[in-house]
């Protein structure tokens, strides 16, 4: 009979597992690696331009060449282009054809300064400027003198030049090429990582002692970040698993019990993913990263089972533990923040699955009882408590938050150097953070709108980069032509070098529009999101109604701040909920005894973490909720379980050890979360031991 019940249980769980697994694959939706969609609220990301915009600014790779010898640099650059050409689209920066187009109708293009002089009919000033150029021995004339006696085209071309930085500084030559990765590489870093790996191989093959090559741009940062994070996580997983094995072996003198623990986790994770698919369809990859916390939480249930299964009230304790752990995550769900909702759904459902697995299937395994009960040294814990209290007092109770997106990540020395080099070579391109989006029916319409907004920016003296600096609409070309012919009619007779016939030819010249659609699609595609949408980059916002502008970095930072504030506000609610639930299960006094140290432990955690990390962010606050979830069972089991001490000790050791190691990770986001979690878990554990000494 007992065997039959066991078989039935296994059968039911197997069926449920298969159903969940198959459904997870069958339900429509996949893994969403789009970080912007994860962080930005849906009303922003619904704007059809925001995602392509984010992708545009995060899918370019800049390759910077550095050498003391320009010839060596050029050779290496050519070799690099030859190799990279096979896999990457190299952005065209050859403007010689464009100059030929300008030269075909030189009167159609004017610098802003000259245009203003012509508008104000200051013909003598233009004439004097032309004289200066005439006597300039090194003056380079783009078109023959008889076609442009006032050197207006040279003046226009020179007016475009300040946008490019110096290519020789600190006694070294520099050059830069821009590679375009696939269309979605800015949104799905995993796709671009393979390409970046290829690029790094080319770089390593080609660079030599005389020429250094630096890579910069978002995909490169993503590659190195994920590589170092992967290494850190793998190493820490191995070390944590080893510690779990050692502690398990010390307690049971065999490692067989690892098998049911492992199966419970697999069942839990499958249940979590199934729930995510049912609730959301698409699963955010970042949510899954946080959801790995389930491993630490799930293992705790198994150890509680092994050490306290025969005690009266074990099921009550495990259920209470489940409820108190789930509460902070249920509160997460109520925030309305997509990322947090997904973490909440995953963890709560995975926990329920593990809880059911432990309660119903663990009895089906022939498991040995522990032979050794590991216990911490109380004196040692008191010293830790004293040290943590001292740190808390030394923290000065100061809190500093930094919600800026860039604060989550500190690049390594070489990447930092390459970004600084690019900054210098591009003449401070990263200062142009404000993006103005303009829509038009066709290229002519778009360029006209660019010209209008550019003139507004000029009026406000805001620096900007616009396609209309390089390409003029037909209307503007006509306007320029008329201005120049006004000059010819009033001033051309002063030009002594030209014959009467040449002067007459200039005056009789008819308007010939220059068409740029081919260049707009190739050379200037940086200024376009699609055929009907263009962008202007400006240093400051224009702030004019009807013009959509966005600063992506500031916008994301703004949302991160609003999420952090929201979470800080609901943290007390989570604590209150835990207290109320516990007061239903236990007496009020016991509920206080459990929840008060659990909640009070968060204060020193926050201040100590801020003192060590210098500043906190949204993810530090998420970590506080995780601490509540992680450590609630320490207090619950210590309340009325005799043998829980060992289970809690093993849980604490494995969990805190992982986070302690992760807090040294080179990836700042990972290290800042782990630091808070380590301090919080350590403090909660010490408090649980001191409060429940028996």
């Amino acid at each position: 009979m007992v065997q039959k019940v066991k078989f039935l249980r296994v059968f039911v769980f197997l069926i449920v597992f298969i159903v969940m697994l198959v459904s997870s694959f069958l339900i429509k939706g996949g893994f969403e690696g789009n970080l912007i969609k994860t962080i930005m609220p849906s009303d922003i990301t619904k704007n059809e331009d925001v995602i392509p915009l984010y992708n545009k600014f995060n899918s370019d790779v800049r390759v910077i060449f550095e050498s003391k010898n320009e010839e060596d640099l050029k050779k290496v650059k050519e070799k690099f282009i030859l190799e990279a050409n096979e896999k990457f689209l190299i952005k065209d920066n050859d403007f010689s054809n464009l100059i030929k187009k300008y030269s075909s109708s030189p009167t159609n293009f004017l610098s802003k300064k000259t245009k203003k002089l012509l508008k104000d009919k200051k013909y003598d000033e233009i004439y004097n400027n032309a004289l200066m150029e005439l006597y300039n021995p090194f003056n380079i004339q783009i078109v023959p003198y008889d076609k442009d006696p006032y050197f207006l085209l040279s003046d226009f071309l020179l007016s475009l030049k300040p946008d490019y930085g110096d290519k020789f500084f600190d006694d070294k030559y520099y050059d830069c090429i821009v590679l375009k990765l696939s269309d979605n590489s800015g949104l799905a870093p995993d796709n671009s990582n393979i390409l970046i790996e290829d690029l790094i191989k080319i770089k390593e093959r080609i660079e030599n002692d005389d020429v250094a090559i630096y890579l910069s741009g978002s995909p490169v940062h993503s590659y190195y970040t994920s590589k170092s994070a992967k290494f850190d996580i793998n190493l820490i997983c191995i070390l944590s698993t080893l510690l779990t094995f050692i502690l398990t072996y010390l307690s049971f003198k065999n490692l067989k019990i690892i098998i049911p623990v492992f199966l419970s986790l697999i069942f839990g994770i499958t249940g979590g993913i199934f729930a995510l698919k049912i609730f959301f369809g698409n699963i955010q990859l970042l949510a899954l990263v946080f959801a790995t916390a389930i491993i630490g939480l799930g293992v705790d249930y198994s150890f509680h089972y092994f050490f306290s299964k025969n005690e009266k009230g074990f099921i009550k304790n495990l259920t209470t533990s489940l409820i108190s752990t789930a509460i902070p995550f249920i509160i997460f769900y109520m925030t309305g923040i997509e990322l947090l909702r997904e973490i909440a759904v995953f963890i709560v459902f995975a926990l329920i699955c593990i809880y059911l697995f432990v309660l119903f299937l663990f009895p089906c395994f022939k498991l040995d009882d522990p032979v050794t009960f590991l216990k911490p040294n109380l004196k040692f814990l008191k010293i830790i408590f004293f040290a943590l209290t001292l740190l808390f007092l030394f923290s000065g109770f100061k809190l500093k938050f930094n919600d800026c997106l860039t604060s989550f990540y500190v690049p390594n020395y070489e990447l930092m150097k390459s970004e600084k080099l690019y900054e210098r070579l591009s003449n401070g391109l990263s200062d142009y953070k404000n993006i103005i989006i303009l829509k038009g029916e066709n290229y002519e319409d778009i360029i006209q709108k660019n010209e209008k907004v550019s003139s507004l920016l000029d009026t406000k003296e805001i620096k900007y980069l616009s396609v209309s600096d390089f390409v003029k609409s037909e209307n503007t070309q006509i306007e320029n032509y008329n201005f120049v012919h006004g000059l010819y009619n009033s001033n051309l007779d002063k030009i002594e070098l030209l014959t009467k016939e040449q002067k007459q030819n200039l005056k009789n010249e008819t308007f010939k529009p220059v068409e740029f659609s081919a260049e707009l699609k190739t050379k200037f595609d940086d200024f376009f999101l699609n055929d009907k949408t263009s962008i202007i980059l400006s240093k400051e916002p224009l702030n004019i109604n009807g013009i959509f502008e966005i600063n992506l970095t500031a916008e994301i930072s703004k949302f991160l701040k609003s999420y952090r504030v929201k979470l800080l506000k609901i943290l007390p609610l989570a604590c209150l909920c835990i207290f109320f639930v516990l007061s239903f299960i236990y007496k009020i006094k016991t509920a206080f005894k459990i929840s008060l140290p659990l909640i009070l432990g968060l204060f020193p955690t926050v201040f100590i973490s801020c003192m060590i990390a210098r500043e906190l962010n949204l993810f530090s606050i998420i970590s506080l909720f995780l601490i509540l979830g992680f450590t609630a069972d320490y207090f619950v089991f210590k309340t009325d379980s005799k043998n829980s001490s060992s289970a809690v000790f093993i849980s604490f050791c494995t969990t805190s050890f992982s986070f302690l190691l992760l807090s040294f990770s080179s990836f700042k986001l990972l290290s800042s979360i782990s630091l808070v979690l380590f301090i919080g878990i350590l403090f909660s554990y010490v408090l649980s031991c001191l409060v429940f000494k028996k």
Partner: protein
Amino acid sequence: MKFLRLFFVFLLFLFSKAFANVFDYPSSASKINNELKLSDVRLRFEQKRTFKNVDKPVVSSGDFVFLKDRGAYFYTKFPVEATLEYTRQTNKQANDIINAVMRGQFDKIENVFALFYYKENSKWKLGLKPKNNAQAAEYLSDMQIYGENYITQIIINFKNGNKTEIWFKK
């Protein structure tokens, strides 16, 4: 008669040296750096510019000043008064060339220009030809600079047929 012929050949040999085309003498930055030493100078200049499709040349004159620490200045006095500066901030590319010549830093332009150098007694000739892949090659054909203790003449030939000649005198 035979003597006269020999004398003629000797004269031709002498002239061939004197009128040697500098572009027949490729050189290197290190060699020119060692041999060509010029210092701060103030000279009179006369300039003639000829433009394609324009019959009359543009003639001007004035003072030329080169200060190692600051750059080169053309103070045009005839037919108009104008100042042209070639410093780090203004006309940088031209300044690089002037600097290289005046300060003996040819290694800084060697990557852009093929260098040619010929010296006989105290007279020297310097030739600069933009390398094929250099941006300057699109506009500039070549540049010839002649001198003794100081620069005596500069000839700049542009790709579009324009030409600038400058003569310097103390």
